[in-house]
């Protein structure tokens, strides 16, 4: 078992033990993830860095059971994922898709979709938290920009009060202003509320921006891990060096 710090005092919130994912596509078997093990701890940011097609998003999908691992074990708060009701688990391990989907309705309807009993005050405070004015509540989602949609999706995710947030390439479609807003929000949630953020990215600059422990995944395997700055400036492995050479660093 690998971990960010051997002297870590607490139990991991999420533990992956030798997990693998194999898919059959067009009659041929393909290994998407091979023998992945890692411990994720509460109140920290993790970057999952690697080239496109490395299996990063597939890994996130296993963490909230949108897909099932074909081998190994994943535990959340010490209990295996299959011991949780999948719908309840997904509210505790929230997932933000790379391209956020908005249900065709108003911003308010999208937020109420998660919890119809939410009070107006809670909805407004949630919007303010993601830096959107309350006027947006009555707006149809079709008129929102990509950045605004991303923030509404983030608010919708946070309404569930997740313990872990899984973010799939969260800034890839955002401009600099929206990226830094999202970054600030994620950092606040991690340091303020003790949420664990696991962020998938193919861009080493984004991993540096979010900072935190960074896991380098290539061809479905965990190649190396370490603090973002250290891993990106001094990769220990040949495959790490070769990937990072072409990833903006």
């Amino acid at each position, binding site marked *: 078992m690998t971990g960010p710090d051997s002297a870590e005092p607490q139990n991991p919130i999420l533990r992956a033990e030798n997990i693998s994912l194999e*898919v*059959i*596509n*067009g009659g041929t078997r393909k290994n998407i993830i091979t023998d992945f093990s890692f411990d994720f701890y509460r109140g920290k940011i993790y970057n999952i860095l690697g080239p496109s097609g490395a299996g990063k998003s597939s890994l996130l999908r296993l963490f*909230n*059971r*949108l*897909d*099932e691992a074909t081998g190994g074990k994943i535990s959340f708060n010490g209990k295996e994922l*299959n011991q949780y009701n*999948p*719908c*309840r688990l*997904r*509210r505790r391990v*929230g*997932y933000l*898709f790379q*391209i*956020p*989907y908005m*249900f065709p309705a108003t911003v308010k309807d999208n937020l109420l*979709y*998660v919890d119809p009993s939410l009070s107006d005050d809670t909805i407004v405070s949630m919007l303010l938290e993601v830096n959107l004015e309350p006027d947006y509540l009555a707006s149809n989602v079709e008129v929102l920009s990509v950045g605004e949609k991303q923030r509404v999706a983030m608010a*919708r*995710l946070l309404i*569930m009060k997740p313990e872990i947030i899984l973010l799939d390439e969260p800034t890839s479609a955002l401009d600099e202003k929206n990226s830094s807003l999202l970054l600030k929000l994620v950092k606040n949630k991690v340091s303020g509320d003790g949420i664990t953020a696991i962020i998938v990215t193919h861009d080493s600059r984004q991993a540096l921006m979010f900072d935190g422990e960074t896991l380098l995944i290539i061809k479905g395997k965990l190649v190396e891990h370490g603090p973002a700055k250290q891993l990106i400036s001094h990769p220990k492995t040949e495959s790490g060096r070769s990937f990072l050479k072409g990833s903006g660093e």
Partner: protein
Amino acid sequence: MTGVGIENVLISLILAAVALAIGFFWKIPVQKNMSIGIIRSFIQLIAVGYALKYVFDLESIWLISAVILVMILVGSHASYSMSKQVRGAFLISFAAIGTGSLITLCFMLILKIITFEARFIIPLSGMIISNAMNAAALAINRLSSDIKSNRLAVETALALGKGKRESCRRFQQQAVIAGMTSILNFMKTVGIVALPGAMTGMILAGAEPLEAVFWQLIVAYMLLSSVTISSIIAVELTLTSHFTPHHQLKLKS
């Protein structure tokens, strides 16, 4: 009109020949299909006529049940061939068509609208099953294609803690409507745009128009019942076939 015989049928073939000639003259590439259709319909219907005569004469409960089962199986296969891309399409079709048809038939028997006689059961089953077949195939295809083309919407709902049913609610509703559209349109326009088959057949055979209308109404309500039940069952089972028991979307690769 009374006493129609094989000679009348042979004379009416002139009309089919005229259609073929027009197709040939206008170089419409349907002569082959048209010829096959003319021959097949002739052979199939004559064979069915003799088979029905045998079933009607025998009046055996087992034989009638066997005929209904064969009709359901053939209907299920036809529905399956229209929706092969869906996992378990044959069983889904069989369950949907079988349940919708049998419940409707049973109600008609229990409520004494019809008696258990081959001359009622067989033709009504044919109408019920063929309509249920179309409804099931349309509902299965619609839901399956909606789930595939709205994968992100479905998975967003799943990721927000919703179950498979809630994640696909609007697609389910659309699919049931797709299955029922034909019968709903039929009920809206019946008697205005066209006189429906059952009624026309009865009038041609010499029945009183009002009696024919009563039968047609019974047929319409019967079809509405079977189509609704079959569409809902088809949609429920298609939904289940697209998900694992853990509310994970599984698409056929």
